[in-house]
């Protein structure tokens, strides 16, 4: 259906190729959070890997900082329709976290858990093979609190609500359990290239 009088503003050819359907490019870095930004103290910060309720491994901030570090550059896509190109993140890949813990994933799913009680579900296959990291630096500087610092999950091939801010742990689950937004109208998986924004989008 054509909208009368709407011409639109086309992205460049390069931008168009990098934009998933329904997205537009932004040059700033919008902040979207469901409540107040929690105060997370590095002195008490901990990152815990769990199988259900059972802790498998736990790192303090200094221990976590000592893990192997990886830099990732690329585009991120928010379900609110902005995409940001060429972002640069540094952190510890989920592969390296699992290796440091000496665990192989006991289940196929997990919930990323945050300090503000937010959580979001991601299949383990989407987190391994270099596809995801726990990021502590953005554009060469420590990750700002409003963008999820000190540490956030980064799963850039999924809509950005999956990249949980203020991360405190990953918890393996026996099945694919819906997280915060997944229980409130948003898609269980969230592939931007298939435009899986809302519950049961194909």
């Amino acid at each position, binding site marked *: 259906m054509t909208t009368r*009088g709407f011409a639109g503003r086309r992205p460049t050819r390069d931008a168009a190729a990098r934009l998933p359907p329904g997205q537009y490019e932004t040059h700033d870095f919008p902040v979207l959070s469901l409540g107040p930004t929690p105060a997370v103290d590095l002195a008490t910060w901990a990152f815990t890997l769990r199988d259900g309720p059972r802790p498998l491994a736990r790192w303090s901030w200094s221990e976590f900082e000592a893990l192997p570090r990886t830099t990732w550059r690329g585009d991120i896509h928010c379900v609110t329709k902005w995409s940001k190109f060429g972002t640069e993140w540094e952190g510890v890949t989920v592969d390296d976290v699992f290796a440091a813990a000496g665990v192989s994933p006991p289940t196929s799913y997990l919930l990323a858990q945050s300090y503000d009680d937010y959580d979001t579900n991601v299949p383990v296959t989407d987190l391994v093979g270099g596809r995801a990291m726990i990021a502590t630096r953005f554009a060469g500087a420590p990750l700002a609190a409003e963008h999820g610092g000190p540490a956030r999950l980064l799963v850039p091939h999924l809509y950005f609500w999956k990249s949980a801010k203020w991360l405190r742990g990953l918890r393996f689950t026996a099945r694919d359990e819906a997280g915060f937004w997944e*229980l409130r109208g948003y898609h269980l998986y969230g592939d931007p290239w298939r435009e899986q924004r809302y519950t049961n989008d194909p």
Partner: protein
Amino acid sequence: MTPAAAAPLRWHHARVTAVAARTPRVVSVFLDHAVERHDAGQHLDVRLTAPDGYQAQRSYSIASAPGVHPLELAIERLADGEVSAYFHDVAQAGDSIEVRGPIGGHFIWRPEDGGPLLLVAGGSGVAPLMAMLRLRAVAARDLPALLVYSARTWDEVIFRDELLEMEMRDPALRIVVATTRGAPVRSGDLGRRVDGEALAAVLAVWGHAPRHAYVCGANAFVEAMTQALVRQGMLPARIRAERYGGVA
């Protein structure tokens, strides 16, 4: 709220019934919509299509109360805005657009959630809070409610006349307008930016401890207000935020 039980949200045609100027930078777009009844605070996705098939999508908060026809979106003209410019310069009654929704299961208020209810708006962030106030006016009139609304000037207070009339007729509703570029107009209003101290002072005068707070506006404003409410002792889980990135 079981995801598996819900049907996917489809795009629907919606007819524009009117476009009305609210302030120099905001129009209300009224839609004869075909979407499910919304909860106060939810938003709608809008999709426009150019003759060559190019499409643009944006999300807008719904300002009308649940169940009220036509449905109202308050749309601010953004610098370099692609979709907001269409609504300001082109759209008129009789046009048809596509909509999908309603969307969002967190920044919502229902009468049974109760109060006292604190609403804090920055600029066009008042839109979803207006849906809550309009709902409260018909469904929970005695519930103490306070709207703290920061706008640049008195003339940029969206829904101003309706808000003032609502407050006049309703002893349980208090409205404080803060104008960042102009003197306060009414006693109790503020002629400056609301910071944490000012918000604390306004809450002290109001005299209620909010059970729920909804804060909507540009990120810096929302960040300042939500942090101030945490310092006031509100549980973070009772403070719901919606942040506008300020993009086109």
